[in-house]
């Protein structure tokens, strides 16, 4: 038995889950009572149990995105009790365990809510806008081969570590879901600052930030009003400093741009 509390009793809970047939359908919250949930179950394993029950009754299981269940792929989402990835800080939904809920709890589960993330079905949303932002400039333009030796350019450890911290963004979209404006600034800033800090990314830093921000606007994400909700809810701790850096990169680019 895993868990520090092997005597933890199974719980009865009530789920209120957003059900929506497809992109164009009108959705609604549907209530499902669940009995005998082990506190050591992960949140998604609890949903697996619900889905097995539904299936055996011949009902359509709840569609939700998930894949690695290790907190790294960024595929799981879920707006749980009004918070992206649920109540635990620094935790993706797949790493959330039922021991953080109590017997008798009612738990609401909704999809990410943002105009730029339309619902495909139930709790599954379309986050392809994130890909298009990355395609607008989230890379260093090097082809395979013909690059210098990896140790040719020393990078101070402090800078490499900071770049790494920004690079750990898992692209889940919790920042957008947390933001009252559905802004994608934290997501965009993580890539912009990662590459702006590293010597490899400096050559294209101006066009990168201009293009990525422009694409962000095209996709319909809202503006940033510095509430900091994004960083507070980010499961991997992407810092607000990245947004500061994006702003300064953006101003610098616009002030010195040849595109103006």
């Amino acid at each position, binding site marked *: *038995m*895993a*868990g*520090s509390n*092997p005597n933890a009793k199974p719980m009865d809970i009530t789920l209120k889950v957003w059900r929506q047939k*497809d992109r164009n359908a009108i959705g609604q919250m549907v209530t499902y009572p669940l009995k005998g949930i*082990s506190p*050591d179950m*992960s949140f*998604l*394993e609890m949903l*697996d149990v619900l889905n*097995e029950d539904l*299936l*055996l009754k*011949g009902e359509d*299981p709840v*569609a939700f995105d998930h*894949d*690695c*269940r*290790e*907190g*790294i*792929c*960024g*595929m799981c989402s879920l707006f749980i009790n009004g918070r992206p990835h649920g109540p*635990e800080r620094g935790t993706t939904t797949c*790493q959330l*365990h039922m*021991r953080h809920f109590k017997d008798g709890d009612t738990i609401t589960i909704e999809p990410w809510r943002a105009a730029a993330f339309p619902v495909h*079905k139930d709790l*599954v949303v379309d*986050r*392809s806008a*994130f*890909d298009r932002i990355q*395609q*607008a400039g*989230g*890379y*260093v333009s*090097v*082809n*395979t*081969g013909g*690059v*210098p030796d*990896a*140790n040719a350019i*020393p990078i*101070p*450890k402090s800078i*490499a570590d900071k770049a*790494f911290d920004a*690079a750990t963004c*898992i*692209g889940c979209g919790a920042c957008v879901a947390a933001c009252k404006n559905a802004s994608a600034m934290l997501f965009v800033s993580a890539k912009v600052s*990662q590459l702006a800090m590293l010597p*490899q990314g400096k050559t294209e830093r101006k066009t990168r930030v201009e293009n990525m921000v422009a694409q962000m606007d095209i996709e319909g994400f809202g503006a940033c009003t510095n509430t900091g909700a994004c960083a507070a809810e980010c499961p991997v701790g992407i810092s607000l400093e990245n947004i500061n850096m994006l702003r300064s990169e953006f101003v610098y680019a616009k002030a010195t741009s040849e595109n103006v």
Partner: protein
Amino acid sequence: MILDSRIPEGPLAEKWEKHKFDVKLVNPANKRKYDIIVVGTGLAGASAAASFGELGYNVKAFCFQDTPRRAHSIAAQGGINAAKNYQNDGDSVFRLFYDTVKGGDYRAREANVYRLAQVSVDIIDQCVAQGVPFAREYGGLLANRSFGGAQVSRTFYARGQTGQQLLLGAYSALNRQIAYGKVKMYPRTEMLDLVLVDGKARGIVVRNLITGKIESHSAHAVVLATGGYGNVFFLSTNAMGSNATAAWRAHKKGALFANPCFTQIHPTCIPVSGEYQSKLTLMSESLRNDGRVWVPKTVETAQRLRNGEITVNDIAEQDRDYYLERKYPAFGNLVPRDVASRNAKLVCDEGRGVGASGLAVYLDFADAIKRDSQPAIAAKYGNLFEMYAKITDENPYERPMRIYPAVHYTMGGLWVDYNLMTNVPGLYAAGEANFSDHGANRLGASALMQGLADGYFVLPYTIGDYLAKTLYDKVPVDHPAFIEAEQAVISKNNQLLSINGTRTVDDFHKALGLIMWEYCGMARNAEGLQFAKQEIRKLRDEFWRDVKVVGVNEELNITLEKANRVADFLELGELMVEDALNRNESCGGHFREEYQTPENEALRDDENYTYVAAWEFTGVGNEPVLHKEELKFENVKLTQRSYK
């Protein structure tokens, strides 16, 4: 059928250089006349698709996830090997080659492995140029660590998230080609069949996972970079969606499947906690650099511990058995994965396992924390300790971790030649989806290396050799071969949807997993394997009689997706058992209880089994046909692996 591995002539160290010169080239202006399909966007697929795009080919890339960045390569923790010898500790291309061949228990091709070691150095350069933030020393140069039984420090890493950083690097290169229009990306799209025209791979049939639409895509060559088949076991460290469907359906269209019984059971995973368990979580092998593995010395102490009469801290030092250090003084806790896993099973089978189930051993950091301080250990493994605490609700800084082996990686896969082409002309397999480089056991930090080697530095050369000999003509998707394949896919889906039985897909999947784990897992024997074969057949029949799949094809239908994958696992599982039965020896991850040394080490039979077992599909339930590719070792001497 004669398997031609197309290994170039000449001395080992010159084969790849010579081959690169010998392969045919496609004129730069003509590359745009060729279309290439890449299925899977993990390290191998994303790097291949990006590199093909850069060369000028038209690429279509497919993944079942919502974006290519989610492929399960992202979850690799520990690192990536490269023979850079930055540490001046005696590493070299030959040493990496030698270690990999030996680590694979002499069941891999020398030429492939040598090439892998050669291009390993280029991979690191490429990733750094993309902005991958590898760990660095204070002087600004790249840091390395020793990993997975290597006696040199050749592993590059990005904290415990190396796979993530490398995949995001490949994803960024892919994005650049998507932006240029050279790669067309199809996320949430699953390959359900391979299409052959005149015996050559000319396209695929896919299902759009949002709309259910079945459609065909035509190309001049198809690359499968679809990962491994560890999820046959239901519980594994693979992602929930990881599946073998693309590879298996290619197998059913004629591609040989090689060494399917070679599965890697990773020694350091978080143990199963209950029946609802949906997957297993790996704790990076790097933890064994500082953690000490132990169980109580006696069964009695272990029993008292399991009953809660004593706690782990009540067990005195002299009552602990650091069994890896005791049995393997030279390698200690760093023995290769197969050896570490098997020994964990042995001590648990003896009744000395810990945790309520008795299916766990301790991985203890107390000494390392005493030696290096808690912050120092946290700096190295912080994210892993956090993950462990989140899942188990236990603090590994205060109590030793409990770990147990879990299915992690599959060395077997589609048979490929030196060009990474299967026996089906125009069909390639890369990364974990092929069988080629790891023999019977993969060393730590070598999966990332192989995925990126295949995608960045091997396929871009070898695919040109095939395309240069292929006409530009495109096969239209209304060609009868496409129509026929689409019909077959549609009718299979309809069949699954119409059974309306009483058991869920997961229920069947779990049942299959239990059979596989029990009889074709860490230890196998002929009797158990024979039994498993019958059980799998029964289960498969029952699946097609009694599975319950709800909804319709024309929607996002998660049960239909799973049902297709599990239907394939139910066939692949049988082939794994067949292969394990055929291989009357123990080697690497394949441990047949009948073949072991008096000290319980794997006993190879080099005289009779130094070959790749490549299986030909002959129909579901029919006996597959075995084709052998003899392995020749000209540069290493076959020895009993010893980590004493």
